[in-house]
C-alpha cells in the first residue's frame, strides 16, 4: 500500500519530458537496434573463417549454421509465441525429401525444387496447423509429436518415392553457374541464410506483429482483448517456422548428398527443441549459441570416449537445472553480477 502512495507522489511531479527521456533510455541505444545486431553477426560470420583451419572445421561450421537457422525458426514458435513443437524435424525432413525427390526423380532444377519444397511444407503446416494449434500445453506437444511421427512413417514406408529406410541420394547444388561441393563453398551460402533468417526474426520481434506473437504466450484472454486474432497469429508463426525449417532441410540434404528417414525422427525434433531451450526461449542469439553447443558437444566429448552419452546427458541436465532461462541470459546475469 505505502509503496503505491509513494509512487503516486512521484507521479504528480512527473511531467511530459519523462516520456522522451524514457524513449531515449529504451529505444535509443544503438546496440539494441535490430540493424546493429545484424551487422555484428555479419561481421562475426565474415571473420569466423580465420579460425577455421581445416575442411572438417568448415564442415562443423556449416552444420552449426544450418542448425542455428532451424533453431531460430523453432524459437519463433516456442520461445516467442509460446507454442511447443516436438515435431519440427518433420518439416526439416519434408524440405529435404521434397528437394531430393523433385530434383532427382522428376528432374526439376535444384533451386526450384528447394523453394517449392519449402513452399509445400509451409502449405502443409498451414493446413494442419489450424486444428493442431487449438491444442494447448501438453496436448499441443503430443499433437506436434504425432505430426512428426506421421511424416517419419510416410518417409520410411513410401519406398518407391523416398528409398525407405535405406535413404536416397541427393544431386549437387549448382548456383550461379558454379557447383557447390566443398564445405568452404557451403559456409558462405549457409552464413547468408543464417544472416537472412536472423534479420527477419529481429525485424519481426521488434514490431507490432512480434509483440502480438509474444502475447500468445501470456493469458489468451489478453491477446483477444486487445484485438489480436489468436488462431491466425498462431497459424502465421507456425507456417513461417515450418517454411524456414523446410528450406534449411533442403539445404541440409543438398549439402549432405544423402538423406535418410532419421531426419524426421523424434530424436531429431528433441535435439532441435534442446537447442532452443539450452540457448534460451525467446532469444534469437541464444538459439545460435544453443545450436552450436548441441552440435559441437558430441564432437568435443569424443575425448571421454565411452562415457560420451553420459557426460552429454549430465551437461544437459546441469544447464537445465542451473540455467533455467538458457545459457545466454544466465551468462548475461553473471556478467552483470561481476560488474557490480
Amino acid at each position, binding site marked *: *500500500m505505502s*509503496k*503505491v*502512495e509513494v*509512487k*503516486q507522489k*512521484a*507521479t504528480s511531479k*512527473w511531467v511530459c519530458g*519523462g*516520456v522522451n527521456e*524514457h*524513449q531515449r*533510455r*529504451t*529505444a535509443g541505444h544503438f546496440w539494441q537496434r*535490430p540493424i546493429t545486431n545484424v551487422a555484428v553477426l555479419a561481421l562475426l560470420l565474415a571473420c569466423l573463417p580465420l579460425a577455421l583451419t581445416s575442411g572438417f572445421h568448415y564442415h562443423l561450421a556449416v552444420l552449426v549454421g544450418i542448425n542455428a537457422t532451424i533453431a531460430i525458426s523453432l524459437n519463433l514458435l516456442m520461445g516467442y509465441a509460446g507454442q511447443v513443437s516436438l515435431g519440427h524435424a518433420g518439416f526439416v525432413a519434408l524440405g529435404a525429401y521434397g528437394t531430393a525427390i523433385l530434383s532427382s526423380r522428376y528432374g526439376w532444377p535444384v533451386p526450384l525444387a528447394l523453394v517449392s519444397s519449402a513452399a509445400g511444407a509451409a502449405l502443409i503446416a498451414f493446413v494442419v496447423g489450424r486444428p493442431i494449434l487449438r491444442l494447448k500445453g501438453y496436448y499441443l506437444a503430443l499433437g506436434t509429436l504425432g505430426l512428426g511421427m506421421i511424416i517419419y512413417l510416410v518417409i520410411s514406408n513410401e519406398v518407391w518415392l523416398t528409398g525407405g529406410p535405406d535413404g536416397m541420394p541427393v544431386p549437387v547444388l549448382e548456383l550461379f553457374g558454379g557447383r557447390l561441393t566443398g564445405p568452404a563453398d557451403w559456409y558462405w551460402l549457409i552464413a547468408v541464410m543464417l544472416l537472412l533468417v536472423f534479420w*527477419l526474426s529481429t*525485424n*519481426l520481434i*521488434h*514490431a*507490432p*506483429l*512480434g*509483440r*502480438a506473437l*509474444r*502475447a500468445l*504466450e*501470456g*493469458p489468451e*484472454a*489478453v*491477446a*483477444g*482483448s*486487445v*484485438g*489480436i*486474432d*489468436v488462431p491466425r497469429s498462431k497459424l*502465421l508463426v507456425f507456417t*513461417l517456422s515450418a517454411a524456414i525449417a523446410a528450406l534449411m532441410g533442403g539445404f541440409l540434404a543438398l549439402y549432405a548428398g544423402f538423406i535418410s528417414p532419421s531426419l524426421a525422427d523424434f530424436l531429431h525434433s528433441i535435439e532441435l527443441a534442446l537447442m532452443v531451450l539450452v540457448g534460451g526461449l*525467446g532469444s534469437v542469439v541464444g538459439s545460435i549459441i544453443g545450436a552450436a553447443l548441441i552440435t559441437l558437444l558430441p564432437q568435443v566429448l569424443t575425448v571421454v570416449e565411452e562415457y560420451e552419452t553420459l557426460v552429454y546427458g549430465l551437461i544437459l541436465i546441469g544447464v537445465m537445472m542451473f540455467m533455467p532461462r538458457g545459457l545466454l541470459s544466465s551468462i548475461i546475469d553473471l556478467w552483470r553480477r561481476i560488474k557490480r
Partner: protein
Amino acid sequence: MSALEVISLSKEFGGVHAIEDLSFNISPGSVHSIIGPNGAGKTTLLNLITGIYQPTQGEVRLFGDSMAGMPVHARVMAGLGRTFQTPQVCMHMTALENVMLGRHIHLDGRFLPTALRLPRILSGEREARHRAAELMEYVGLADYLNDEPGSMPYGALKRLEVARALACEPKLLLLDEPAAGLGASEKADLTGLIEKLSGAGLTIVLVEHDMKLVMSISQHILVINYGQKLAEGQPTEVRRNPDVVAAYLGSAV
C-alpha cells in the same frame, strides 16, 4: 442509437443458468453499473458481450451492429474494450509493452512490411511507445514504465489493465470490478479516473461490488441476480428497491 443492446440473452453451463433471458440497453456516454451478489452472472455477461462465450440464446448489439458469431478480436475492432476481474497481464513483457499491446489494432501487423521493416513499422512502434507511456502517466503509472508486472502491486496491475484497454481507443469500455483489492486512496484515484474518462465521452460499463463507488459515479444501474434482471434505474431508485435490498441483505446499499 444504443451503445449496447442485450436482447433476451441466455447462457447455460451444463444445467447452470448463468444468464437467463436478460435484456437491457445502454445509451452512449456516462457510466452504467452492473451489480449483483457473487455468482450473479456479471462476469459471464461481460464474457458474452466480448465474445469469449457464445450465448445459448439471444443476441448482443454494439452500436446497432449484431455481434452474433463475431470473434473476440473483431469486437475489439468494433470499439469494445475491457479489463478483467483478476488482472490478466503478460508477465514476460514490461508494463509499457503490455500497454503497447493495446495499440495492436491501430498498427500495421502485416507480415511483409514487418519482415522488411518498412518505415511505417518503425514510426508505428515509436507512436505506440509514446502513446502507451502517455496512457500510463494518465492512469498514474508513470513510475512503472519499465517494471515487470510480477513486481508491481495489485492496484497498479488493475490500472495497467485500464491503460491497456484505453490504448485500444474503445468506444465502450467494460470494467470488471476495477476497485476490488484497492485501498481507500487508490479507490479515490480510480473514481477520479472513471469520471475523467466518462467526462471525455467514453461509455463505461462498470461491474463493481463497492456500493459507495457505484452509487457515487453511476448514472444508471442494472441489478442482476441468478442471471436475471432484478432492478434497473437511477442510483436513487435502485437503492430504495425492496428486491435489491433483500438480495443484498445485510450489506448497506
